[in-house]
């Protein structure tokens, strides 16, 4: 059955979709394919090889940068989870003067251009709150962690608040009637309800941190290189299959995390619909 609105069945539209799909995917596909190329060149196929991946693991700087990225992502995720959940609870539970202003302020880190936030942190961590560079690892990553938590926690607040909207107040009321105190209600009823939102928010914050280039670019120093910063300097220096291999690994990692987040949220939505 094809109705008049079944646009997907029409060839001009199919052709258009195929073109857009090729535009979006061919560059990424080429990138992944040539990361397995047994040649220094990334345009001529010379056979399958894992040598570029092996080379990556031999590159101490790159491995260290990846470690930094993971630590920064983990730490900023924990901070933004705490701050974001607190903000979501505040806006969900309380009515107070300046609430609309606070909501607008909370949305600001999402819309401020990255470059503006980046230079603001550069100045802030140079002139106002100089972050000591000689701190032992991982404390020397503190400035980057703070910067990442600042732009991530608004996103976490958004996700957790959406989850709180479906909370059934009768559950808390019943618990109170049965003698539960505020803390017990929070721990045993609110938190279990929030879990899908917390997990999705955490994965979002983790991916945002792992992916960030521009803001990190302005807050990192020579001893605090992250994975994207290292890849950037590799790209500037030369286009080699090693960069392709590093990129492929990062694509796999972030796509996997996002798919997990989406799957969790999808399960949540399905449960609500049922």
């Amino acid at each position: 059955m094809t109705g008049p609105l079944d646009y997907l069945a029409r060839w001009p539209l199919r052709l258009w979709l195929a073109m857009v799909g090729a535009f979006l995917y061919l560059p990424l596909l080429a990138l992944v394919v040539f990361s397995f190329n047994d040649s220094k060149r990334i345009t001529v196929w010379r056979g399958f090889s894992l040598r570029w991946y092996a080379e990556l693991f031999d590159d101490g700087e790159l491995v260290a940068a990846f470690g930094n990225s993971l630590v920064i992502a983990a730490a900023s995720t924990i901070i933004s989870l705490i701050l974001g959940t607190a903000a979501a609870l505040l806006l969900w539970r309380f009515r107070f003067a300046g609430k609309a202003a606070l909501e607008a302020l909370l949305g600001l880190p999402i819309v401020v251009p990255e470059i503006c936030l980046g230079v603001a942190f550069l100045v802030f961590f140079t002139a106002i709150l100089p972050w000591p560079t000689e701190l032992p690892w991982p404390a020397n990553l503190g400035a980057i962690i703070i910067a990442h938590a600042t732009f991530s926690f608004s996103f976490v607040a958004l996700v957790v608040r959406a989850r709180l909207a479906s909370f059934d107040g009768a559950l808390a009321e019943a618990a109170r009637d049965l003698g539960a105190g505020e803390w017990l209600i929070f721990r045993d009823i609110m938190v279990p309800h929030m879990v899908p939102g917390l997990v999705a928010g955490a994965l979002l914050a983790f991916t945002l941190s792992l992916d960030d280039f521009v803001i990190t670019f302005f807050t990192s120093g020579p001893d605090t290189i992250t994975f994207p910063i290292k890849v950037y300097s590799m790209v500037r220096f030369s286009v080699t299959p090693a960069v392709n291999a590093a990129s492929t690994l990062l694509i796999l990692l972030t796509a996997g995390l996002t798919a997990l987040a989406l799957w969790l949220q999808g399960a949540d939505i399905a449960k609500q619909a049922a």
Partner: protein
Amino acid sequence: MLQRPFQAPGVFAAVGLPPVVWLFALFLAPLAVIWTYSFGENRTLVDIAITGSWGNYARALKPLYLAILLKSMGFAALTTLLCFILGLPVALAITFARPRAKLLLLVAIMLPFWTNLLIRTYALMAILRTEGLINAGLGALWGLVPGLPPFEPLPLINNNFAVVVGLVYVHLPFMVLPLYAALDRLDRSLIEASLDLGAGHLATLWRVVVPLALPGIVSGIIITFIPALGAYLTPDLLGGTNSQMIANVIERQFRSANDWPFGAALSFLLMYLTFAALMVKAIISRREAAR
């Protein structure tokens, strides 16, 4: 009405203070610092005096920098237009697809979105370079025809063309998703009526679908325009010396030219442009809600 949990007054402070203090101390304060610097002057290389002068803003609006600002807006506008042209048919197809195909198409549009911006830009570099896949492919085809002069690689990178291609590549999902959201809310019987009454598909699209979905289209346009305007990485990696955008000029003031007050003024100009665009969006969605 049922009472929500947490009646204790201490809870308000416990959940309110951490995010509010963080936002003020570590988000607003850094922005306030560069806002103050934008009214300052460099005394020596490291000493900045806040003189309250508008000199940095005046300098930012001199022809040299105004041209870059206008060029950035031009790039962002062209990117938005191209994303709209590319994205509208895609959004239409998603809207009227069956549930399974719809989910598949939505994921397909969003998947590149989750890939690191730097990596997507690098992927394009590998395609567009002089020794890249497009030129290699064209060169191979060229070689098949005997008697032609040697193949001249097309200049596909380090120019304005590459920047716009890169911006479209990166921002297409920003356009498709709001368009889809707007089209999905349309009353389908209106479209069917238009088709039944003899209007062609293009006429229906232009005279029925677009006017009805206009608020969503405007929102898609603004959501695409804002990040494209502030793009740093795309012009940095794909552009040439003549295709630098405002974000690249800002970066230079802070990292190599060491003129923080001027860079601060430029970044606040960019911020004000962003807020102006958001304001337009808010006004339109409020007008729509009132209807």
